């Protein structure tokens, strides 16, 4: 559906994004360190594509998504949306830009104000950013409800009267209200039942086609990401360790972590009993105190001596394939290509 190598228009450009949460301790509450939730992350998202962002819980993928939308005041780095730098924009200035970038949240229960009706929830962006009157707003709300497959009769209902899948549709309708270009989907299916997940994913795909949307699809469900994303970024402990087009990543993962992650996914096929399963030992280290060298060196099955000393650079090692691992130190693509994707 989208060919990466064609070098389409870059919609989002993230460079050196850092999001640190300070830790204070001691009698005088001194700043003793940071939780490095997102630590020097760079990538692009092309117009019309879906970039999947996968990783285990606590790896910083949600924080990354929120930081891109500037829901936080970021520690460092630049974020360019549609050619406009927003990394240092004030919250008031961001307000005008909000309509272009929206978000769909993980918990369909928690992301809807329980005290507001559907019409209020979906109409809120319109109220904030347009000068529609009540009837116009209602018409637009109905339109949006149709678009996400909700019966317009329900517009006066409250969120608790809906099932999880329907609530997620409400959230999507709200995100669509202002005709955004870019939507961050923060684990939109994680809290849904298996039989509903497919409905929501299909809806997202349909809407993308219909409105020409660009998605950052954050998920820990590797199989769902494989389905929806065009390119996939894998995060580990605040850093992107691998970024590739979907098929190449799933068929031939480069980073040891990606390999382990993929092999850990249980396949719903009893005959496919994974023979070459890589089982990672131990837990993810704390982002407040990451190991020296490569973040993954504590669990890496292919760890080398250099990994404990040096943090591998995130580089394009094959055309369109970026990875941060010392195993690929001797691989390199030409500078021209590198410039094009801008790592």
């Amino acid at each position, binding site marked *: 559906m989208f060919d990466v190598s064609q070098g389409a228009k870059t919609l989002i450009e993230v460079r050196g994004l850092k999001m640190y949460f300070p830790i204070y301790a001691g009698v005088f509450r001194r700043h003793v360190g940071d939780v490095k939730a997102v630590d020097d992350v760079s990538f692009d998202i092309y117009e019309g594509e879906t970039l999947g962002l996968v990783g*285990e*819980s606590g790896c910083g993928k949600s924080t990354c998504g929120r930081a891109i939308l500037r829901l936080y005041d970021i520690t460092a780095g630049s974020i360019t949306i549609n050619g406009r730098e927003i990394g240092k924009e004030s919250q008031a200035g961001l307000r005008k830009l909000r309509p272009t970038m929206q978000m769909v949240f993980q918990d369909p229960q928690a992301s809807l104000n329980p005290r507001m009706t559907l019409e209020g929830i979906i109409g809120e962006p319109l109220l904030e950013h347009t000068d529609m009157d009540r009837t116009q707003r209602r018409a637009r709300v109905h339109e949006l409800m149709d678009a996400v497959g909700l019966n317009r009769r329900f517009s006066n209902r409250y969120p608790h009267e809906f*099932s999880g*899948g*329907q609530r997620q549709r409400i959230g999507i309708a709200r995100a669509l209200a202002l005709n955004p270009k870019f939507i961050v989907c923060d684990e939109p299916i994680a809290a849904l*039942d*298996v*039989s*509903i*997940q*497919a*409905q929501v*994913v*299909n809806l997202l*795909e349909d809407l993308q086609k219909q409105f020409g949307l660009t998605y950052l699809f954050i998920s*820990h469900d*590797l*199989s*769902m990401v*494989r*389905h929806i994303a065009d390119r996939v970024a894998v995060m580990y402990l605040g850093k992107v360790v691998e970024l590739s087009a979907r098929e190449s990543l*799933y068929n031939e993962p480069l980073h040891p972590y990606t390999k*382990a*992650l*993929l*092999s*850990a*996914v*249980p*396949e*719903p*096929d*009893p*005959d*496919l*009993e*994974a023979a070459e*399963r890589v*089982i*990672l*030992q131990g*837990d*993810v280290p704390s982002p407040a105190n990451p190991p020296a060298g490569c973040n993954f060196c504590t669990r890496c099955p292919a760890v080398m001596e250099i990994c404990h000393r040096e943090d591998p650079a995130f580089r394009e090692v094959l055309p369109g394939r970026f990875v941060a691992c010392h195993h690929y130190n001797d691989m390199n693509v030409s500078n021209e290509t590198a410039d094009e994707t801008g790592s």
Partner: protein
Amino acid sequence: MPDGASKVLDVQNLNTIFQTRSGEIHAVNNVSFDLEEGELLGVVGESGSGKSVTMMSLIRLLPSPPAEIRAGKVMFDGLDLLKIDDDKLRDIRGARIGFIFQDPMTSLNPVFTVGFQLREPLMRHMGLNKKQANKRAAELLEMVGIPAASARLKDYPHQFSGGMRQRVMIAIALACDPEVLIADEPTTALDVTIQAQILELIKELRQKLGMAIIWITHDLGVIAGIADRVMVMYGGQVVEEAPVRELFKNPQHPYTKALLKTVPHVRGERAERLEVIEGQPPILGGAPTACPFRERCPVAIDICARENPALHVTGPRHAAACHLVAPAREEAHV
């Protein structure tokens, strides 16, 4: 049913309801199944399908009120667990039937050390004194793969990571060498890499200890990798039951079929578009008089709205509850 394997647990016509202000909710309807020695029975279903309630009903763990076990029999070692008195049941809980819960974050008591919580069943059921119990507790932690086990006995649950905590839960459940282990979505709250660790661990322990396991999950992938036999639940009922390969290769019930299709894969073909089950999961209510799946069923017929189908045997050890499934000729009960 292969000969020689005897049933450790035999559940017949279990009915559990919840009393609410808006009336009775039938959470478990006429559920029957059995568990053989050393077998791993996978129970699949979406949230609200009644799988957890069924398992908790077995050892009467549901708070009553509002829960009430209306009818049924749970035969374990010649005893009906639903009939025996509370003291006898307590002797069985934790000693002969172990339980692992979904959320390792909340299932351990935050204010007691892991050692204390591990010692409790040991001292209660095996009559060990504190010293012996401590020794055994350290062994158990080691068995579930916790490094520096005896030192960590003094730690509190919050000092463990999620995966480690689930290992502690497993150690507690296995403390008294139970004959049956009931695992209620034990890996749902964990990351895939940790889930893989736990699955490995369970496989290993199963070989070593040989207990029968009931494994509840909504993840078909997990089931495919670990179960011997699978039971699919929907709307408080068992809709299909079969050995694992049989179920994945030859699903009979429309729900099972659809479910298998909606799940995307990491390997193999990538479908351009996912199959979907239209509609919403059923909202439980009064006693079911119709097939709970009928509203989402692509092949529903008139009778589905009038009559709740019973489980029909459709093949060797394979049964499904659907009006459209032709009953096999054998009269074997599953």
